[in-house]
């Protein structure tokens, strides 16, 4: 019983991280029709930036959350630069965008290997979240519970942003019909940069707060990117709810798979993809892929 409870908490935690990662991916795809293959790299960059800030730069050791926010802002800048300097030049050319983002992800992976080396870096849990919470005979690490809270807060925040603010209304208009949005005076190209930077920041933030659980290692980008893809294939593109439900599903399948069939953890991801693609190719909450 305890085993299952712990596994469930771990699954929801991982699902929360995946949500932060894939929400940005899904929004970028929904609005810009760009499958951003650098998303795994942005996650990794965030984790490495954060880990570096935590171990101290110029002798200054930063607070965990300050480091996380700084890393997210740094990666958001990188995301905005990628969008402004490269993707901007390839409007409507999906294949070219795929190739550029793929190329950038290789460059980023190699640069990280050059700068941070091949050994995994452990990220320490913030001290005041280091303990456990006891529920009967089961102990849950506070940090994992905190990640769940963070993910839920971000989900609500993103939902409010999209549904309750002017910017959100503009983004939704851009997702639904970019041409018409332009006609009514929305600066869609500006939205592109904002959404890309936001997605990058979310991915980087997921990377650093996932650090204490996953640690940071070369190749984490290639581990996370397919998970984000599966989430988006499951949940449907451009849908926040889809990302959320898809993340939780993948979190559960991945963690339970790893615990019960450790060798086949990746393979069991196949199953939900198979079912969704057969019965609902546009994803659970999505519209038809363009």
């Amino acid at each position, binding site marked *: 019983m305890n085993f299952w409870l712990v596994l469930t908490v771990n699954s929801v935690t991982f699902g929360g991280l995946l949500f932060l990662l894939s929400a940005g991916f899904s929004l970028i795809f929904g609005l810009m029709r760009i499958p951003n293959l650098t998303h795994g790299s942005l996650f990794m960059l965030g984790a490495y930036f954060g880990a570096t800030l935590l171990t101290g730069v110029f002798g200054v050791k930063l607070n965990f959350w300050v480091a996380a926010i700084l890393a997210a802002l740094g990666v958001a800048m990188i995301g905005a630069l990628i969008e402004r300097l490269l993707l901007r030049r390839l409007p409507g050319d999906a294949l070219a965008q795929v*190739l550029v983002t793929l*190329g950038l992800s290789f460059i980023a992976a190699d640069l990280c290997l050059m700068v941070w080396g091949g050994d995994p870096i452990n990220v320490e849990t913030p001290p005041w979240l280091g303990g456990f919470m006891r529920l009967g005979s089961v102990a849950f690490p506070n940090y994992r519970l905190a990640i769940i809270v963070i993910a839920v807060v971000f989900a609500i925040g993103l939902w409010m942003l999209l549904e309750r603010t002017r910017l959100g209304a503009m983004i939704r208009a851009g997702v639904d019909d970019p041409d018409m949005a332009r006609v009514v005076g929305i600066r869609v190209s500006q939205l592109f940069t904002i959404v890309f930077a936001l997605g990058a920041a979310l991915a980087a933030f997921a990377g650093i707060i996932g650090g204490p659980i996953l640690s940071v290692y070369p190749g984490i980008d290639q581990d996370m990117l397919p998970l984000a893809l599966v989430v988006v294939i499951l949940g449907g593109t451009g849908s926040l709810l889809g990302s959320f439900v898809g993340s939780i599903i993948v979190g559960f399948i991945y963690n339970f798979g790893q615990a019960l069939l450790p060798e086949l953890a990746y393979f069991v991801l196949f199953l939900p993809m198979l079912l969704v693609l057969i019965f609902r190719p546009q994803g659970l909450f999505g519209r038809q892929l363009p």
Partner: protein
Amino acid sequence: MKPELNGRNVALAMAFAALVSLPFWVSGTYYINVSSQILFYAIFALGLNVLVGYGGLVSLGHAGLFGIAAYATGYFLQAGFPHSAAILLALVVGIASTAVFAFLALRATGIGFIMITLALGQIIWGLAYRWISLTGGDNGITLHGRPAPFGLDLGSASAFYYTTFIIFLIAVVACAILAGSPFGAAIKGTRDQPRRMNALGYHVWAIRFWACLLSGLLTCVAGILFVYYNQFISPQTAALTASAEVLLMVIAGGPATLLGPIVGAALVVIVKNVVSGYIERWNFLLGAIFVAIVILMPEGLVPGTVRLWRGGLRAFRRRRGIVLAQSAEPKP
């Protein structure tokens, strides 16, 4: 039909003669081995080209299929099967996996197809890494010896080169026949005008499915040659980098042509071998080449270099190399 004596045919005949006599004028087994690599990667690139060039369906999971065929060969050999049976079984496993891939990925076209193949390819890579009892994990599978068909031992570099060359020729002829056949025209039709093809009574999905299978067959053949060449297979073979490399071969040479993928394979293999002699940063270079191609030479590396060489900017952005296939269903 008498073959015409024009520049193109003369060049082809010279290339053929050069390839036939290659082990005699190339010094050292290293270069013969590099040539073998070029040939089986060319088969791989030709296979992907059926899908990318003719079908307009860009796959980022082909290294997964390549890896499946290679792993299957290694696995069956390890299980004690003779070479012929192992190769046949590997082909069967490879084609069956291709069918599953195609069945899933063809639920979408365009970007959806790319994303699904990418996810599938990564799942294969993850399996190769983690399903240790089957694949040996990071240690991979080591083969012991190459086959000896009809009493000819393929252990030496030049014997393996000639085997690869013969299979390569068969693949080239098959692709040439395909490109000129009604079926080849149908594939290109589904790329350019899926809705019209549908209206004309063609079964667009079935045509794409068969294109996937053909592409998968060539990919699996290349994968089997690869595993016999290296006598070793590890998860790196099925990684996204490998899928990207072969896509680069197709794009670099010029997709939807017969010679393009071959030239592309030669370029990539040579650059990779030369570069790895000096620096360890092949992945960085691969990424940089992708970005540079897309930004500077959207029509492909070979035509792009020629254009830059001649200094002409007229052709710039006039033609993108690959046309992405769209869905046959009418848009709402």
